[in-house]
């Protein structure tokens, strides 16, 4: 059952599930599409994440409880097909500052770590946190590593990191706690482009090792 809760006085958070799963993302994106198409009165914009969707609304136009009711009518009626699309190659140099640490902690060779990370397709679950930051999953469980105990103050744009069951790409320089294993020259955020982010939830990508 979806949970719909107030996120302040002008937004509702719809929580679809408590798991990270392609089908859950499919449902989130389907709800997002139907809300974009139907545009309930007073709905201003939506933001999606792994298993939830935030609705910004204008309380002068619609009451939060009424909007929640309208959203609720879509529950169980969405075509939550798992997104499929072409797979984008992300050329990646595996030379990140935490690669050696990952090798040591996993008891794998560097080559094996790279092969496990680059050897599968990833689904983009979320673009968020910072401009263009791209959250992907699922990582091979052998590579799962908690976040660094102390985050770095500066992580360069293009850094490829891992944290728990996820891998992700920093699109702009920012602080960050993920374990950095590589870097791409692909530009993931460009404020003069439309859309400004290279990836969107539901996209698929693959890391391609380069020298």
């Amino acid at each position, binding site marked *: 059952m979806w949970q719909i809760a*107030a996120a*302040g006085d002008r937004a509702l*958070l719809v929580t679809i599930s408590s798991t990270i799963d392609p089908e859950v993302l499919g449902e989130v994106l389907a709800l997002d599409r139907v809300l974009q198409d139907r545009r309930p009165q007073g709905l201003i914009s939506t933001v999606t994440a792994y298993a939830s969707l935030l609705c910004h609304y204008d309380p002068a136009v619609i009451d939060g409880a009424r909007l929640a009711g309208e959203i609720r009518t879509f529950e169980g009626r969405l075509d939550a097909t798992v997104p499929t699309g072409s797979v984008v190659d992300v050329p990646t140099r595996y030379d990140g500052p935490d690669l050696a640490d990952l090798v040591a902690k996993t008891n794998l060779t560097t080559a094996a770590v790279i092969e496990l990370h680059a050897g599968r397709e990833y689904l983009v679950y979320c673009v*968020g*946190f*910072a401009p263009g930051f791209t959250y992907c999953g699922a990582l091979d469980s052998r590579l799962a590593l908690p976040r660094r105990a102390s985050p770095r103050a500066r992580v360069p744009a293009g850094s490829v990191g891992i944290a728990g069951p996820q891998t992700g790409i920093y699109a702009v320089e920012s602080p960050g706690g993920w374990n950095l294993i590589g870097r791409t020259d692909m530009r993931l*955020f460009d404020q003069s482009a439309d859309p*400004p982010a290279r990836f969107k939830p539901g996209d698929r990508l693959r890391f391609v090792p380069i020298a």
Partner: protein
Amino acid sequence: MIEVVNAGRWTTIQDRGRPGRERFGIPPGGAADWFAAAAANRLVGNHPNAALLECTAMGASLRFDSDVHVAVTGARAAGIETWVPQVMARGATLAVGAIGPGLRTYVAVRGGIDVPVVLGSRSFCQRGAFGGGFGRPLAHGDRFAAGTLIDGDPLPTAWPAGHRLPMGSPWEVRVIGGPHTAGFDGRALQRLSAVACRVSPELDRMGMRLETPSLRLHGNEIITVPITAGAIQVTPSGELIVSLADHPTTGGYPVIATVITADLPLLAQARPGDTVRFREVDRAEADRAWRRLAGWLEMSG
């Protein structure tokens, strides 16, 4: 032209921000104290979308090369009159000094600050290092022009004292429970409302950390969710992080409550060491509080 003679501590160009682009990871941004910024624009007869300066802790000094109306609002600043329209004569320098009580002081110039619109806004976005004219806070020697975002005449008198927000610690801030209140124990929000939270030095336009040594809140873990300005996240160690205008668009900690829109200006003015107290209200009170501020903005002038 307007020339920055002294950039102050952290002075940025802001307007109403770029809400609606969170899906690209772009924070909504805009003036942290939206009410003081809107009042400054009203005082000089600007359109609500006009960009202005947000000064932090220590104000900026500006030299004008033609006669222009300006207004300074928000927190009081040394050496300058606030909440009143004034005319800067050609060649004159406007010096906004040390700021306080409160943290942020706004300087509106008639016509607005004319810098390029990036992704729908002139606001500086720190995380993306774009917007705000220079992709950074202002620096000594920066020059920009006043624009043409005019919506009427400057107001003839000072902003009514009764139509301003109280400026000073302790900051009484109203919240609405959620979205993750249910993931905490039943009395968590009540306990949060009963303590004085101290603003830590780790404070910027993205967010504010609050120290609450006596309060040990523990919420259920969540999967990363989209968040809003005013979201009060509780970290596993029980620390509170409250998001401000430039907040990350998603967060990985449960949100026990969210500050109402009408009280975001108060939160934005809290300084390190200040006290913040939260009080739970319902949506009806949040709406009334917002309409009250909107009414002040309409009535004046």
